[in-house]
């Protein structure tokens, strides 16, 4: 117990030491999450109204290797006709490997769907993995794709052991288009959102080039889950491994972030995730926080003019969450202050590169999404132009902030450029969708 409290406290102290700037001092935290509200720069130019970037970061603490949150998982597999052969075999193998990483006390269920839905193994504590693994091995390919029903049954199974102190997750695999029951991206997104509100996260894996990435992407995004693109069946093992890695490293869930603005500051827009903007506050929910990973809420704000030397409270940032390791409700609160100066150099030198890198990443993802829509409408030349500009922008920022991830993103955008003609577009769109959603989830960048 004492060890658990000490570790995050020490980290908090360290965080405070390393945080730049005079005013935005480090955050508070209890338990497994560290909260930090930071500005693009702790100084703003005085004299006229300015915009600034505010980032609320939540970092999951590193867990000792023997500690983790119990899991309540439903693996939903596509067994439609198109999965016949290699694809289904690889999917089965990957699912089995995932189950082998679970322990006693975890709940798991397996659902398979084609035009009908089959509950291969109903939700039960994992006494022996063998029973469940046998059922998976017996799976064969079928006919159509009742994706909505598959997810519904998976969620139904997860509900049986639903708990704020378990990681409640559905992992959906599909290689094709939903064609039985509700099949539109809107309907699946609505379902994702409804499940997300109950703390059930749906992660989606698209296999091959025949699935609808709009549908799979939006379903994951709406419930705050991960979205993966497996180009070949052999990639499935690695992807299930990544997803399980996240599932097994959850430290907090059901996270509510609230940012209350002091007078003189107003929210303009949110970058990346969706949030509710009211006149003087912003609210967002995040579903799960992983050990050692940072997720954030990033927004652009407008600040009334200040005068040199003035110091002001900008916002109060609060986070409430279910600490699944400590099995209690936790939270933190922090004030974000800003100071005014006449000197652009002072603003520069007090820049927080982490905040600014996040800004660049999210803007890059937004533009990438816009380019995708242009290409959907057939405006290939405009899409290429935007991607080229985006690539330069990301490269420039990458150098400025010494962030190699941004430079890698710049290269991705350049590669997207080359693949806008018809045959390659089908695949490229899936790659771009996956990358955009990774940006929203702030996955991949390590701070």
């Amino acid at each position, binding site marked *: 117990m004492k060890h658990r409290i000490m570790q995050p406290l020490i980290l908090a102290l360290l965080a405070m030491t390393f945080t730049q700037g005079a005013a935005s001092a480090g955050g508070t935290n209890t338990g497994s999450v560290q909260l930090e509200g930071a500005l693009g720069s702790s100084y703003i130019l005085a004299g006229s109204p300015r915009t600034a970037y505010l980032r609320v970061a939540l970092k999951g603490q590193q867990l000792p290797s023997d500690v983790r949150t119990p899991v309540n998982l439903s693996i939903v597999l596509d067994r439609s006709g198109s999965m016949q052969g290699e694809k289904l075999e690889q999917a089965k193998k990957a699912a089995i490997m995932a189950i082998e990483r679970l322990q006693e006390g975890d709940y798991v269920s397996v659902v398979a769907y084609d035009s009908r839905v089959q*509950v291969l193994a109903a939700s039960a504590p994992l006494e022996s993995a063998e029973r469940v693994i046998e059922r998976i091995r017996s799976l064969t390919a079928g006919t159509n794709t009742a994706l909505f029903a598959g997810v*519904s049954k998976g969620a139904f199974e997860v509900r049986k052991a639903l708990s704020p102190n378990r990681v409640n997750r559905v992992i959906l695999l599909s290689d094709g288009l939903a064609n039985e029951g509700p099949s539109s991206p809107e309907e699946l997104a609505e379902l994702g959102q409804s499940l997300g509100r109950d703390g059930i996260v749906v992660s989606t894996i698209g296999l091959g080039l025949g699935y609808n990435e709009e549908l799979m992407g939006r379903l994951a995004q709406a419930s705050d889950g991960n979205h993966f693109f497996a180009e070949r069946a052999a990639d499935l093992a690695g992807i299930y491994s990544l997803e399980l890695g996240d599932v097994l490293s959850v430290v907090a869930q059901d996270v509510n972030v609230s940012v209350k603005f002091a007078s003189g500051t107003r929210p303009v827009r949110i970058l990346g995730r969706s949030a509710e903007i009211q006149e003087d506050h912003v609210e967002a929910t995040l579903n799960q926080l992983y050990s050692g990973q940072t997720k954030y809420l990033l927004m652009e704000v407008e600040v009334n003019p200040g005068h040199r030397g003035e110091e002001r409270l900008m916002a109060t940032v609060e986070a409430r969450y279910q600490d699944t390791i400590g099995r209690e409700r936790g939270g933190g609160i922090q004030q974000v202050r800003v100071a005014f100066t006449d000197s652009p150099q002072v603003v520069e030198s007090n820049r927080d590169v982490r905040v600014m890198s996040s800004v660049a990443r999210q803007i890059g993802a937004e533009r990438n999404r816009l380019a995708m829509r242009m290409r959907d409408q057939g405006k290939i030349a405009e899409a290429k132009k935007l991607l080229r500009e985006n690539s330069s922008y990301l490269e420039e920022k990458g150098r400025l902030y010494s962030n190699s991830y941004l430079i890698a993103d710049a290269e991705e955008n350049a590669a997207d450029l080359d693949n806008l003609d018809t045959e390659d577009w089908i695949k490229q769109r899936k790659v771009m969708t996956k990358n955009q959603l990774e940006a929203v989830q702030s996955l991949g960048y390590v701070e």
Partner: protein
Amino acid sequence: MSSKILHQERELVNERTEALVMDHLGEVEDKVLALLSQRRSEIVGALEGLDLGTDSLRALEKSDSRLGQLVRLEGSSGDLIHPPLFGRLTAKEEAFLQRTRGLWDRSPGLTVSEEGEDPQGAWQPLFWQEGLYLVFWWPADDGTVVGVELDRVRFLADVIGVLPASDPSADVRGLSLRLRRAGGTALYSWGPEVGEGARPVAQRALAEPLSSWFLEAFTVSTASGDSLERVSTIQFLAILLATLLALVGSATYLWWESRRRLREADQRVTFVNQVAHELKTPLTNIRLYAELLADRLPEPHEESPGSSAVRQPGHYAAVVVGEAQRLSRLIHNVLDFGRSRRGALSVHRQPGHLNHKLREIIDRFRPALESRGFEVEFKTQDDELAAFDGDTLEQVVGNLLSNVEKYAAEGRFVSINCLREEDEVVIEVRDRGPGVAKAYSEKIFRPFFRVNGSLTEGVSGAGIGLALSRELARLHGGDLILLPQGPGAHFRFTLFCPRVHSGKEGS
């Protein structure tokens, strides 16, 4: 096997199937309605005692993921209270107002009522674009009305959750069900795969407010998942092929066809057999105790019907015994028929006096016959101790007398004559009814055959009595034939019935 009989039987089977399937659909409907009912209780529970201000309504929306939008109206005028039109509306609230505009725009006022007991609110289905939205209206104590919309997609997901899953390894044939919207789109299916364009054997709309949802049932009868209709198409092609292949081909086809139909009928006979077996045991007890009862009571007088003897307990007991024995005979008919199909009928001879047994049998039928105005004449010249199977005698003579009762009632006369010719006994049963037309004189001995016409109309019977009786007679070393002499029907039943000398047993 006559194809007409099989067709009739198939009709009967179809009717029964449809009734059973409708029952099953009703059970499924109940599950869905139970879910809706649960939501309703939860909503009412959440609203009662809640202050109905905008903030707490928004908080309720937020906290319950199964709810869509909430709205609150002035009860008398229908004016909108929440969401507040002059405040800042979220996109969801805007969309909700748009699709429900027709409701709250209307004046005057809004009344919430529902058929049945205790209206604590009512469901209303709303149709918007392609979806069905369910709104629950709840009258608050302060004269306002709160409308709670269910999250449409979430409700469907929860319904799918409670409906059965499928099992491809087991679901190869049987019943396949589907939930669909009016207008055709399928929402969820379970059971075996159904072929394209198959028609449902039963359909059922769900009760309000879900009357735009239908449950459909399909029967899948072949391993490949084809419906019954497809089988006919295959038959037709087979015939075409056969004629092309010439006579041998079609002969082979016809033989195969009749074997298949025989197998089908056999399956039905097996089922009926099993039922008859079940009935035997309780019936044996009924007969036993009825006979014991009849023994303890005074014999009914041998008087003509209409006299007070008819109302005596002894008479009642005699009727019960007679009917129990008749029931017993019918069950034996069925069981024996089953055995005869399997070649398992047998005859067990015991030494006894045939004329005594015959008298017994006739005496059991006497009350029923006499109450219908029959004169029953029994003459016998056989007095010997002989080896015969009493059950066979009971079955055959019983069947003949039962037929007389059913078809020859207008003649009011039956005579049973028994005489011995060496090792054979001949029993002749004669009546003065309408008799049997020459054309049918052999057909009546075929199983399931019943003469069509006013005579058999309304008379129950499966048509196996005579077929079985002839078979039993032949097994007993004799025969059962219809003699051509009129008037009325004249049956001759012969049995091989060797005399038993003391010290020796008959064969």
